[in-house]
């Protein structure tokens, strides 16, 4: 799923150290290139080396914005002129971005030793720090509607490096004012952003309980005896860590529990302790027992339909961490501090959750997983899987790509691994361009049932050539796989073929390390395999409709049940 990144650097200082760090540590297989030394604007106008390159555009404010340079020399501040210059700079970046895959723009910072006008430095019309803040906000505002441009908070890199982030000596000697401490933070954030764009962000945090979510061993002291919240600095630290986890869940990262404990005792603490910030409903799943943690993690990942490269495991025991690292190397197992006061910081410093979007589906993912647990418990009570599926009252709403679903569609393109026919990774702008072509048709599928709304979870992309339709994209979130939504999507795809008078639908499966479930589906889908010599190609004669599964109702975007077939 990973691919080699290509990263182009445009800067008004010597940015080679950053390029080297990115190429040799952050993204070890990345190809990097530097814009020729010289002014920024011509470099932006020249564009990137190619459309599949991402870029970092990093400048110093005094060389980019003339009005700011004048303000630094105690000339009167001309805010309007400064903001006009910022907008012109942003427009040049936006034009550059139209030819790049993605662009990262660190905000402008001042050296920590520059005190400006001291107590007046944040006074509007006078202070240089105030002007710089206004310029950064104007830059972010001017670029907000360019989805492939990301303005990065460089202030955090300098705050983390402290007074050692900036070296005048380095500037005089190498024409780079930023020390390795800042460069490493910058490279890590850029790497995390590229990972997020490529769908490599982690989606699940698996947590131990004792001495991770609370202090003490609940099996020994009972839920009333654990250390959590209250007027106690250690209890405060655990409660604060739980709040940070809850915030992470609101970003779309799922939480789960893997703990050596008696399940009833542990769940009683989660349900009843008044200071618990996380309750049972906040967890997508759990394995609380005395089994091997690596096995429990593997089971839980299978239950949640997630790959091990999606998961982070947090445990206070070095032995458990080593065991999981050894047994499931793709799971990220960070070193974990002993002091609970440092837990929140340890979580916050993980750079593996960055995503280029925050969608409604992200915010409600925990609710969706809770609904899934309810569905599964229903499965036990009914006689057959088919009866169970019919009892779910599954409704699939078909919509074309539009402004309102573009973020989520692009996210799905870049995160879906298992039920994914071609595993094309497209950015938002690339997706928009592709869908707009007259010979293309891109449909999104929202899925809901009586337990809840799973959101936009499926996409079909078709390309029409003469009398043949090609199923270019067929992807479905793992959260709704196996409920006949796949067949409903094929039903809609064939209906589109028939409406556009295509005689056949042709689907070519492109294998990856993770999408075998998709191949399994197409093998049992009823589509016939093409000639034996042509592997992984499936054909449907579109003179015949593809039957809609009985358990699924297909709706149009107005919510009306539709007979899509002409």
């Amino acid at each position, binding site marked *: 799923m990973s691919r080699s990144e290509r990263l182009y650097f445009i800067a008004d200082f*010597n940015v*080679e*150290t950053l390029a*080297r*760090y990115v*190429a*040799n*540590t952050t993204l070890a297989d990345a190809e990097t290139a530097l814009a020729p030394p010289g002014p920024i604007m011509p470099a932006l106008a020249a564009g990137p080396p190619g459309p599949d390159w991402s870029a970092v555009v990093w400048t110093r404010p005094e060389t980019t914005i003339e009005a700011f340079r004048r303000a630094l020399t105690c000339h009167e501040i001309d805010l309007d002129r400064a903001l006009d210059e910022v907008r012109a700079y942003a427009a040049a970046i936006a034009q550059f971005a139209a030819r790049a895959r993605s662009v990262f723009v660190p905000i402008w910072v001042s050296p920590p030793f520059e005190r400006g006008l001291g107590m007046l430095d944040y006074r509007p019309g006078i202070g240089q720090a105030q002007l710089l803040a206004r310029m950064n906000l104007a830059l972010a505002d001017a670029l907000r509607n360019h989805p492939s441009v990301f303005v990065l908070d460089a202030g955090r890199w300098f705050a983390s490096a402290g007074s*050692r982030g900036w*070296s005048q*000596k*380095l500037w005089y*000697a*190498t024409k780079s004012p930023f*020390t*390795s401490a800042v460069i*490493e933070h910058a490279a890590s954030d850029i790497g995390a952003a590229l990972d997020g764009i490529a769908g490599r962000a982690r989606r699940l945090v698996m947590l131990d309980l004792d001495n991770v979510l609370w202090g003490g061993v609940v099996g020994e002291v009972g839920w009333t005896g654990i250390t959590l919240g209250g007027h106690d600095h250690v209890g405060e630290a655990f409660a604060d860590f739980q709040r940070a986890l809850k915030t992470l869940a609101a970003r779309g990262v799922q939480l789960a529990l893997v703990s050596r404990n008696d399940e009833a005792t542990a769940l009683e603490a989660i349900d009843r302790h008044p200071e618990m910030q996380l309750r049972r409903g906040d967890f997508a799943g759990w394995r609380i027992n005395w089994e091997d943690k690596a096995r429990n993690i593997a089971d839980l990942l299978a239950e949640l339909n997630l790959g091990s490269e999606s998961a982070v495991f947090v445990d206070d025991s070095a032995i458990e961490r080593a065991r999981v690292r050894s047994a499931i190397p793709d799971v990220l197992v960070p070193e974990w501090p002993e002091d609970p006061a440092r837990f929140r910081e340890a979580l916050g410093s993980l750079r593996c959750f960055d995503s280029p979007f925050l969608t409604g589906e992200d915010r409600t993912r925990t609710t969706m997983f809770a609904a899934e647990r309810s569905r599964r418990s229903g499965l036990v009570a009914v006689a057959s899987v088919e009866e169970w599926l019919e009892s779910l009252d599954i409704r699939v709403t078909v919509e074309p790509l539009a402004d309102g679903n573009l973020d989520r569609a692009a996210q799905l393109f870049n995160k879906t691994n298992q039920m994914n026919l071609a595993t094309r990774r497209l950015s938002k702008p690339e997706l928009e361009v592709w869908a707009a072509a007259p010979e293309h048709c891109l449909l999104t599928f929202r899925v809901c049932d009586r337990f809840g709304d799973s959101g936009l979870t499926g996409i079909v992309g078709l390309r029409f050539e003469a009398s043949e339709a090609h199923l270019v994209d067929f992807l479905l979130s793992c959260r709704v796989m196996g409920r006949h939504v796949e067949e409903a999507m094929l039903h809609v795809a064939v209906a589109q073929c028939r409406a556009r008078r295509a005689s056949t639908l042709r689907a070519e499966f492109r294998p990856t390390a993770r999408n075998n479930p998709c191949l399994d589906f197409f093998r049992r889908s009823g589509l016939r395999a093409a000639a034996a010599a042509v592997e992984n190609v499936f054909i449907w004669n579109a003179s015949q409709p593809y039957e809609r599964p009985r358990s699924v109702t297909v709706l149009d975007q107005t919510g009306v049940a539709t007979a899509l077939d002409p």
Partner: protein
Amino acid sequence: MMDHDEALRIVYDAIDVVNRQLPASKRLHKSPDTVIVGAGGSLDSLGIVTFVILLEEKVGEAFGTTVQLLDEQMLVEDSPFQSIGALTHYIATRAM
């Protein structure tokens, strides 16, 4: 005068940082014989200057003192930067 082992630790810390900017084949080995400046060295001019200024910072942090290592001596024959061993000795005797 600084303890030799402490000086060596500081040099190795700086090597760790610089190595992260180098391809695997060019990384500096943490050994007294490793060449920093001169024939057989794998750092280019940007790498050398970055390394030396980093060393200055680290010595300053560890001992609350300043040392100036970035000067013409870096590039002359018998430079203290010829090897890690020579550099460690140089730092240990210069940092008071």
